[in-house]
């Protein structure tokens, strides 16, 4: 679509701030048309109008339209309700998860402008991201997630009826503690399907138990055989997916407990791409709501009041407080993402000499094609590494601080200048690398023929140790595993620190 600003007579769809269902439909049609012009490919949309209370419900279940019951969601709800009542937070005006159809929520208290903004942001921005980005395409199955969540909810409540709420809660608590370690980072998981889960669950339960029994067999083997066999390490390779390992190998878990582990693991896996594409996803949605709303204005479909109200809201969304501001709580993913996409468009449309040098392939190319390419084929880490331009670094005045516990002072290692761009870019990309953000902990060894203890190994990066509540997490691992659990921080074959559950009797140091 070329930018022929038709300053024709303004015939706005609406002028007041009140919304009606007819108006929502009209705006949606107009927005859909613009989205099509910009080649945004989306899943079908389901737009639900809900009240503030319902929004709090949605918010406290991580946006899942159906979720199993757990106290932690109740805690989240109480917290949200309190903060909302005190006016400390406007409710997030958009919550959306990748499902087919893509469900977005409009809050009834919103003005017409806000409803249009949310439709543009969620139903066309996020939606097209979910459908286009390679992580979502390969790792998640949008058409099956709702059914799976329903299956999970029913299964959990069946277990509660059969084994008691407390017993189920304990297992889920422990799984939640490990849910970030319930994902395959490199292997594509099998698709989620509720129907299949249901039919295969029974078989799987039996099969699993059999396998576990095999592993933990205590019937002595013939001596000859035993001699031939050296002590094999189990697992042969370190395992990064701790929950998966537990589901398949924990000696004492009942079949239903294994299924609960699996449910938490599957849901965690489903949201894994979400966690890896925060900046890209929010940036994409923000870029498109901005572009679509401005196009609405250019077409004369909205009036000045509307666009001013929009700009005010948009500015608030992409506000980035400086590092020294009392409001500072890290880099705002909306700001960063929006800045990168916007600058990408500028590089394509109005390249400078600097751009020619930094981005020879894309400077002057078709902006729409380039943006779609960027959206489809990256995750936060690689996206930043690839597309963060010197101009954005300058605009945001990004700089690096080195905090070394061996030095007595912080050091500014790079700033937004010629010598610093590359370093800032690398460091920022690293900051969004999940395997850097979370400690690297893997299943290292199981003493299969001995005390059945499980050993996890932590590989610290740059000597960063584990946090103080590590012992607490270990208790959860212990609950699932059923036998002693050890965790060692190992660097260069040297054990820097070790944790045990139950705590080791022998005094250490």
């Amino acid at each position, binding site marked *: 679509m070329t930018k022929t600003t038709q300053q024709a007579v303004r015939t706005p769809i609406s002028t007041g701030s009140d919304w009606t269902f007819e108006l929502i439909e009209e705006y949606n049609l107009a927005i859909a048309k613009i989205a099509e012009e910009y080649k945004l490919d989306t899943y*079908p949309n389901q737009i639900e109008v809900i009240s503030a209370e319902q929004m709090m419900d949605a918010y406290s279940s991580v946006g899942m339209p159906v979720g199993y019951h757990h106290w932690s969601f109740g805690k989240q709800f109480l917290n949200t309700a309190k903060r909302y009542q005190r006016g400390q937070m406007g409710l997030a005006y958009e919550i959306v998860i990748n499902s087919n159809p893509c469900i977005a929520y409009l809050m009834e208290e919103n003005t017409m402008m806000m409803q249009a903004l949310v439709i543009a942001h969620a139903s066309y921005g996020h939606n097209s991201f979910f459908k286009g980005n390679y992580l979502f395409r390969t790792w998640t199955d949008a058409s099956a997630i709702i059914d799976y969540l329903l299956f999970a909810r029913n299964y959990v409540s069946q277990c509660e009826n059969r084994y008691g709420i407390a017993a189920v809660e304990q297992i889920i608590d422990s799984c939640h503690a490990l849910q970030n370690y319930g994902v395959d980072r490199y292997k594509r998981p099998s698709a989620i399907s509720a129907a299949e889960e249901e039919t295969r669950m029974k078989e799987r339960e039996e099969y699993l138990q059999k396998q576990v029994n095999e592993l933990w067999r205590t019937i002595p083997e013939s001596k000859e055989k035993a001699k031939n066999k050296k002590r094999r390490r189990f697992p042969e390779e370190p395992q990064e997916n701790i929950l998966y390992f537990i589901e398949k190998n924990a000696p004492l878990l009942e079949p239903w407990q294994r299924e609960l582990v699996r449910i938490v693991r599957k849901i965690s896996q489903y949201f894994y791409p979400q966690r890896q594409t925060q900046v890209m996803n929010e940036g994409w949605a923000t870029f498109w709501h901005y572009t679509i709303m401005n196009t609405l204005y250019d077409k004369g479909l909205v009036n000045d009041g509307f666009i001013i109200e929009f700009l005010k809201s948009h500015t608030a969304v992409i506000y980035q407080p400086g590092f020294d501001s009392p409001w500072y709580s890290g880099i705002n993913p909306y700001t960063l993402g929006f800045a990168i996409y916007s600058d990408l468009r500028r590089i394509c449309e109005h390249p400078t000499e600097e751009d020619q040098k930094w981005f020879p392939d894309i400077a002057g190319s078709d902006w729409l094609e380039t943006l779609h390419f960027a959206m489809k084929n990256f995750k936060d880490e690689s996206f930043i590494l690839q597309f963060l331009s010197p101009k954005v670094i300058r605009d*945001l005045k990004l700089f690096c601080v080195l905090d070394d516990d061996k030095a007595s*002072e912080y050091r*500014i290692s790079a700033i937004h200048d010629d010598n610093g761009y590359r370093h800032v870019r690398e460091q920022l990309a690293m900051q969004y690398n999940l395997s850097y953000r979370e400690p690297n902990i893997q299943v290292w060894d199981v003493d299969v023929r001995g005390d059945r203890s499980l050993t996890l190994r932590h590989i610290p990066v740059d000597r960063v140790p584990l946090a103080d509540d590590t012992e607490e997490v270990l208790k959860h691992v212990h609950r699932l595993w059923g036998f002693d659990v050890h965790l060692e921080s190992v660097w260069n074959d040297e054990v820097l620190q070790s944790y045990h559950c139950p705590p080791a009797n022998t005094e250490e140091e």
Partner: protein
Amino acid sequence: MGLTHIIDRRLNGKNKSAVNRERFLRRYREHIKKAVADAVQKRSITDIDRGESVSIPSKDIAEPVFRHGRGGKREYVNPGNKEYVTGDELAKPDGGGGGGAGQGKASNSGEGIDEFVFQISQDEFLDFMFEDLELPNLVKKQLKDTTAYKYVRAGYSSHGTPAKINIVRSLRGAYARRMALTGKTRERLKLLEKRLAELESEPEIKDPAFSQAEMIRGIKDEIEYLKKRIHKIPWIDDFDLKFNLHVKQPVPSTSAVMFCLMDVSGSMSQMHKDIAKRFFILLYLFLKRNYQRIDVVFIRHHTSAKEVDEEEFFYSRETGGTIVSSALKMMKEVMDARYPANEWNIYAAQASDGDNWNDDSPVCSQLLRDQILPFVQYFSYIEITPHEHQMLWHEYEKILNEHGDTFAMQHIVDAGDIYPVFRKLFQRKAA
């Protein structure tokens, strides 16, 4: 481009999180109970039944995950540089982090806020307050009062609400009516049909007067007419409808009366009276909440006793000397007049500072032992005094030894004891 559905969900349940919230409250009930107990002590008489904000130490409800701790070498990217250039060195703030240079989000979450605060409603507050409490020894007694009914089936009626339509009966009625109203017509119809069949099977006879074809036509016309008539009878009519009939029957139920006996004599200081009132308010709330139909009799006494209403009991300032037995006598009178022991569960709570005429105390225990305790389910005595116990307490102690199951006594020194003592007196005992 996909389709778009716009759905109004506002009328759907908004309490999706109710179960999760309830789970949370259940998990932390010990914390909440403690907060409630603390709140009860702090509150004044009038606002004892509000909601409450409960706070729980954050570390108790934390959900631990593996995280990076402090230390090692790390590099952060921050926005909004003002005057720094590469190579600048900045002093680390005390405590090794936080503050200026801004830690990554991960290392800071979970710290900073020490208390998790949330609201519970008035209902929930009272639930927690009176949890596991009950009136002891409550038994079913036959009751003349007729406020409790049970509905029982009593045949059928031709009037009623749509919800109670008895379909089988109604259709049976309709069928009978249709049979009755169309009987004659059907008979005639049958006859005609038979005749028609005969005519059609007979060979044609030449008869100029009655041509067979004409006769057949005539019969067919009549058959059609009759069928129409039958068809006109409504399939179901208003007076076919039959409804299930239910009638009210009174049922025996538990009925109980609580006597509140309060000492307002001059020896009770303002603080004592306040404690006594707060105790009774607690009791009153508890009774109102957990027992829908319960009578409460308020008796206040100094040298003479008087039955008063709720308002006067809690707010009047009348005072005088002390004769405790006057209240017990009064209670006995009221019992005899209005609450026969074979129909009522009778309870009493007495509050006093124990400062009585020494001659009167034996009279009290005599009264209690002979005329009151045999008829009541439970009698509790609280003594509010920071001083040594006097005659009355010692007299009552004797009773305690004889009637441990129906008599209880507790000692309150200051306002902080009210709620614990209250809980002790009405603790639900294992069945």
